């Protein structure tokens, strides 16, 4: 380690080196101040103000903690959006992680055509939020959508009043709502019960990203470990829990952190597919924030909402990072 005052005794060459270094990172420093640090501070200040940009200039008004007070006690939509987002995250993250892991495990079994499968699994990711939302809006259409037409055929085949049809329809409708009162078909995003679950189901369509990361993690595990374990008489199951999972835990950890950060900021689906409805059942937190800021022009209140989200994401990330020492296993630490 350098002594603290090492730089004082630096040669002119070192000073010049440091100066060029600062010069090279200057664009980032400027950008960081302009687009990250400055706005963060400003948004913290704004969260204590009332500010309506659509009104005449100078409507910035200090209101103290009242934005926060309103959030916690006077705005039912805040709690609704928080619970909607929490539910979305709690279900979709495990689904995406386990689905991505399962596909990666299948692909890691020296199958032929691995590149083709990988391409197919990742393809949905490159469509982007708007296209995915429009496509699934069409698929979910209760009367004309592919899913319900297909289901209707199945029910026709089983017989509309048969026990089998009802047995199949019951769990579907329990999770995804009813298309209409006397129908066996699920209502998907058009029903209050099913809208959020439908969006969660849709999120599983884009697990290609976590699949690819998992696959790379799996391929980095040395084959010799498995050979050694097999010689020691470990079965497939033991190998999976004692070798694969521990060695893959950093990858799972990364996917988890990214999943938390991403799923708390879900926005596009909520705006395009359901517009937050029916009855605010898909009013995601960021959608609510966006509306407050840019539709109702309550920028102060929206800043308070944004800061609260930041605190949630930060604490969840820290929680995951802190807990990681319990379950994430880094090979380099194994000394």
């Amino acid at each position, binding site marked *: 380690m350098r002594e603290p005052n090492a730089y004082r005794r630096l040669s002119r060459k070192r000073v010049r080196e440091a100066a060029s270094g600062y010069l090279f990172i200057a664009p980032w420093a400027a950008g960081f101040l302009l*687009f990250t640090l400055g706005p963060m501070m400003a948004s913290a200040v704004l969260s204590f103000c009332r500010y309506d940009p659509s009104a005449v200039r100078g409507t910035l008004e200090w209101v103290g903690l009242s934005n926060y007070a309103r959030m916690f006690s006077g705005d039912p939509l805040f709690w609704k959006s928080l619970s909607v987002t929490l539910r979305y995250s709690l279900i979709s993250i495990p689904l995406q992680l386990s689905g991505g892991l399962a596909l990666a495990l299948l692909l890691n079994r020296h199958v032929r055509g691995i590149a083709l499968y990988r391409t197919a699994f990742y393809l949905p990711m490159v469509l982007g939020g708007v296209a995915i939302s429009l496509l699934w809006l069409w698929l979910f259409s209760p009367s004309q959508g592919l899913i319900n037409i297909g289901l209707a055929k199945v029910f026709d085949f089983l017989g509309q009043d048969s026990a089998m049809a009802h047995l199949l329809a019951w769990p579907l409708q329990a999770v995804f709502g009813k298309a209409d009162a006397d129908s066996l078909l699920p209502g998907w995003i058009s029903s209050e019960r099913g809208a959020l679950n439908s969006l969660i189901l849709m999120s599983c369509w884009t697990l290609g990203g976590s699949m690819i990361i998992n696959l790379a993690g799996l391929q980095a595990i040395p084959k010799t470990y498995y050979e050694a374990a097999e010689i020691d008489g470990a079965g497939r199951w033991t190998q999976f829990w004692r070798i694969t999972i521990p060695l893959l835990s950093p990858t799972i950890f990364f996917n988890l952190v990214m999943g938390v950060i991403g799923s708390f900021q879900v926005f596009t689906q909520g705006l395009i597919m359901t517009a937050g409805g029916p009855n605010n059942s898909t009013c995601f937190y960021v959608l609510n924030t966006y509306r407050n800021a840019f539709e109702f022009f309550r920028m102060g209140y929206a800043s308070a909402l944004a800061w609260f989200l930041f605190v949630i994401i930060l604490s969840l990330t820290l929680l995951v990072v802190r807990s990681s020492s319990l379950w994430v296993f880094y090979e380099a630490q194994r000394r």
Partner: protein
Amino acid sequence: MKGRARKRGRALRRLVAPLVTHALLIAATVVMLLPLAWMVSTSLKQSGIGLSRGIEWLPWRDAWTKDNATMDVIVLGARVAPRDGRESVEVGIKSLASRRRPTTVYVPEGSFEAEIEAWRIRPLTGEDETAEARWAPFGSVRRRLAPEWGNYREALEKMRFWVCLANTLAITFLGTAGTLLSCSLVAYGFARFRFPGNNVLFLVLLSSMMLPSVVTMIPVYLLFRELHWIDTLLPLFAPAWFSVNAFAVFLFRQYYMTLPFDLDDAAQIDGCSALGTYWRVLLPLSRPVMATVGIFCFTQYWLDFMGPLIYLNTSEKFTLALGLYTFKGAYTTQWHYLMAATLAVSLPCIVLFFAGQRFFVRGVVMSGLKA
């Protein structure tokens, strides 16, 4: 005995396991690709009736032919009915060209049964029964493939695709170029120079990756409003030139770290300045990272939705993602148009994905490695 049985079991497993794996993988592939196939299929269908024909993967159309004249029709339904002492199939059709009343065509049983099997048959409604039946004994109704390529032309026209495309191209190009240049430059500073705070600042940069964009969204909006940049493309790509993409900086820095310092020394001996070393030596060597970052940035700017949604107001400035969203608002149930437009908007990214797949995969993988 026991050993042999186990050996046989193992051989069986070796034979069956790949089959099961493939079966599962193929099932997953079908689930992944079916929605895309349905999108393509819908985009080629006829409006109205074409969309309500149930699950038809190809854009079928019905045509009624009689006496060498062919007419596009909608098959309303069919049923078996006795006629002139022979079993006949009665097919209710409706002309598409004119808004004429439904017509009933009688076809002798047997000759067209196979074809009728293939039609989507719905019971004739009351309206059809009261309709004046026209006798057309030996006309025939046939299905034919008729992809509506015109859907694309009309959808693109209706969503002002070319205007949106020009805007999107400008943003994507300027945003990607800005990211590549500024991030590689900043990464060079972090990787090659010793200065107080190097590591701390790099950690700050890394942690800014975790910051949800919602927190800075409102003040940044107000900042651009002060600059009178609202409803221009500037807010969408200008930040890129200030190296706001921390992940790109990270990738470039990690890559520079693997390049030996001898390169810099050699360049300096040859009279290169620090900037010259970056521009002439390190940047040309970092092509793989540039490809990865470039492809990532391209898709990011191409698909960006929230930025255009917040900053753009007039339709002359819209990007493809925003144009698609407003198009959806105007043509809610015209799924053939919506799917055609959706496909057209995402096609460049799909093509790019197929062309640069290894860079895509590498980028995703590298993003996972930093954990």
